[in-house]
């Protein structure tokens, strides 16, 4: 069930009504778990078993780790933690990477003259698996680290992992953020209603108006990139630069908004990444829940900044490489991750070499503008392997742009200039400015809410026809 589907439009009010009408906190949480299972089963009920397995193993691991800690059995708790992480990663690897490894193994064997038949069965990727396995790992690690130091009930573990707004594409919420909110019965507040509605309306605007309107143009060019001119390839790459931001940020905002309608706060997943003036800053603003997860659960355990310059560089590349692989089983994602890691390592090295960490506050205007241009150009170019279907397609797009190909073999395509420039510019400059304002009293909230509903209806009026899935659902 997609957020932008008609069935979700019917599902959400029913679940909201059931949740808020239920008197007790336990009943509400149980109702939400059941609703989340229904939400997941609407896609494929068979994978509910897998979700249940992840919940049960995480629940068992968190209890066992706490047991071990109470008995001061540090080694045993570490063993339990690794078993739990191993199980989650096995589940993830099997469903997500089996086909990729098999295809590459068959290809490799055939190049050395050994013929091997691929298995007939293709493994179906369970939607949201990358997100809920990361939630599971988060809870186990946080329990081991002592950040979660009380026994979490099975119901709370189930809700933390399977809560439907963030089940299929995040944000990846920390156990320390979500579990305390489950402890008390949520109160229905006007502020929550307003902020949630504002997030949902913005999310839908991003998704069904901007992203879905840009998508047909981008899809057409990336379908056969060798047929198009350098200008069109550049426009399509810029189109994808806008599309993925609106699509994933749109999804995240709807998830945050829907969650807030139930009284639960989820952290922001984006903070105007296209305003970033360095790649490090970009990753502190883009898919924040994943990048900070990789930092806290991978980069820092690998040694982080603590083991000298060369190891710091190595850790950055490994972290981003694994971040690329997390996105999907394809050479394109590996290249995308490795390239980001390499550029981040170079950026960090230059800062260490100069002995000064550059922030937006201590840089000159010229440096900021130059930094923004370089950063965004790198981000733009690196979206090419992320979007292209194959490695050959990526090369076709890059060569077409850099050789400024003028001959075109495909049918003419008009560039939707207004869609590519206006929304992204307005979002990065004006909306960013408005959102950075300090809090002020919300005068005439009912009038503002009425206007918000009017905007929501106007978004529906402009919405793109047809149902297009969110890009991040494939991860």
């Amino acid at each position, binding site marked *: 069930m997609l957020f932008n589907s008609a069935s979700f439009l019917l599902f959400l009010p029913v679940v909201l009504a059931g949740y808020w009408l239920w008197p007790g906190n336990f009943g509400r949480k149980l109702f939400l778990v059941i609703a989340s299972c229904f939400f997941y089963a609407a896609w494929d009920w068979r994978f509910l078993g897998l979700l249940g397995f992840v919940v049960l193993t995480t629940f068992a691991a968190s209890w066992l780790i706490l047991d071990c800690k109470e008995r001061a059995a540090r080694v045993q708790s570490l063993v339990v933690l690794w078993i739990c992480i191993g199980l989650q990663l096995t589940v993830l690897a099997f469903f997500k990477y089996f086909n990729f490894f098999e295809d590459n193994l068959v290809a490799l064997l055939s190049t050395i003259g050994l013929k091997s038949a691929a298995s007939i069965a293709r493994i179906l990727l369970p939607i949201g698996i990358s997100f809920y396995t990361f939630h599971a790992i988060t809870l186990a690690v946080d329990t081991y680290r002592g950040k979660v130091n009380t026994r979490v009930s099975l119901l709370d573990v189930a809700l933390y992992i399977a809560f439907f707004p963030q089940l299929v594409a995040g944000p990846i919420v*920390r156990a*320390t953020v979500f579990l305390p909110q489950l402890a008390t019965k949520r109160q229905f507040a006007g502020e929550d209603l307003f*902020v949630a509605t504002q997030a949902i309306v913005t999310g839908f605007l991003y998704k069904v*108006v901007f992203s879905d309107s840009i998508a047909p143009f981008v899809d057409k060019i990336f379908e056969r990139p060798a047929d198009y001119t350098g200008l069109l390839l550049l426009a399509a790459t810029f189109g994808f630069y806008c599309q993925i931001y609106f699509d994933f940020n749109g999804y995240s905002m709807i998830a945050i908004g829907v969650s807030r309608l139930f009284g639960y706060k989820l952290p922001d997943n984006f903070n105007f990444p296209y305003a970033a003036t360095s790649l490090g800053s970009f990753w502190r603003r883009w898919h924040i829940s994943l990048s900070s997860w990789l930092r806290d659960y991978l980069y820092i355990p690998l040694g982080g900044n603590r083991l000298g310059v060369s190891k710091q560089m190595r850790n950055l590349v490994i972290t981003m490489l694994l971040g690329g692989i997390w996105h999907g089983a394809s050479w394109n994602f590996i290249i995308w991750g490795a390239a980001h890691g390499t550029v981040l390592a170079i950026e960090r090295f230059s800062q260490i070499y100069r002995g000064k960490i550059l922030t937006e506050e201590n840089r000159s205007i010229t440096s900021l503008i130059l930094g923004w241009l370089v950063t965004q150009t790198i981000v733009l170019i690196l979206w090419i392997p992320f979007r292209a279907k194959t490695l050959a397609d990526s090369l076709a797009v890059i060569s077409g742009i850099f050789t400024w190909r003028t001959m075109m073999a495909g049918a003419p395509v008009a560039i939707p200039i207004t*869609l590519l420039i206006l*929304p992204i510019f307005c979002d990065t400059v004006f909306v960013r400015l408005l959102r950075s*304002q300090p809090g002020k009293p919300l005068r005439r909230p009912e009038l503002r809410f009425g206007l918000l509903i009017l905007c929501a209806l106007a978004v529906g009026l*402009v919405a793109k026809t047809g149902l297009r899935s969110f890009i991040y659902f494939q991860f």
Partner: protein
Amino acid sequence: MTVGILGTFLLLVVALLGGWSRSTRLTVDGSTESSTELARTQLAAEDPAHAKMLVAGLVVLLVWMVGAHFWLPLPLAFLNTTSAQVTAFCVEHLHQSRPVPGEYILIIEGSSVTTRGVDGAALERSLRSAGIPVTVIQLSLSGANHLERLQLLQNFADSLSSSDWKRLRKSRLILGHEVQALYDRDPLLNYGNNPFTPTTLAYSNPDNLPTLLNWITGRYDLRELWNRRSELQLIATQFLYNALRISYLQLWDTANRAAPCAGFQPHPKRADFQPAGLLPIDFPPDPILSGRQAYPRVTRWNAVRDAAFRSIFKGAVRSELFFSLPGWLAYEFNYDNWWSHAHPDQLFFNGNGSQIRSRLREPGLWNDPGHLADSGAEIYTEEFAQFLRQNWPAQSG
């Protein structure tokens, strides 16, 4: 162009409304930003009452729906569909035919069997040559469900000028209904799955909701309704989408002025239709279905449907006629024969009668087992015209 500008404007308005900057922003590790936290503390006492907000939201929703009803007519958003093109053709045809005193106007409505089997122009020529001053308006549509057929008639009626209405009232208006076994037993057939007019969803018009509910409750019991739950969900969402005018602007943007398209769409024989022999003249009766139990139960809602179709013409319909088309399936054959016996008072041209079936035995006259090919349509129209010539004066004068 419109989408980019309007969308950006909406983005600014939503951001200007200001709730985000007031709200506590949560970081990934759960801490909050101090400045906004402070603002939150100061504002805690004047937290807006959610009840007032909900009322305001509902009022806006209501005003929007009423405003949309008057200012954003649904058919305008579906101008590029076959339904709109057929309507345009029929209105044009009515304007082209010269009104004569004592004239008849025959409106034929139906689904794909009529679209491929009844040549409205040939029927009109044949009847006129026999001295009947008639204008045939063929408002049939391939794959159309019942509500779509209702909306098609409605679109036609809405497109008529006051002088057209005057002419309709002065003439002897006959409404011709297709009788078809699969359609007549199921008000939801082809509801959300019309392969021919995939975007003609204007029929899920909130104005049509009472009519549809009337048909559904007249046809199904609770158990049957449960079995059709996925279709009912689809219907509910289609109505909701149209009531709120979701995607209206983009539909309207892409809708060109409807290029007229005739209701009669002849098809050649399909290459993959290769029956073993000739069309059987008849089939043995089906004791279960024609046992006067199943058919009456599943078709009792038809009278309500026909009344709804009739009501669109605001009392101008003088009489009705019914017609069916032949087919290779025993079920349809038995149904038509049951229909002719069950409705002795209705003027009914049975397309599955032995005379016409004997003329349509060659597989080459068929597009597929359920539809006539162009050459078959010619024969069928000829037989239909002859039937009307013989029965006309007595029934509709």
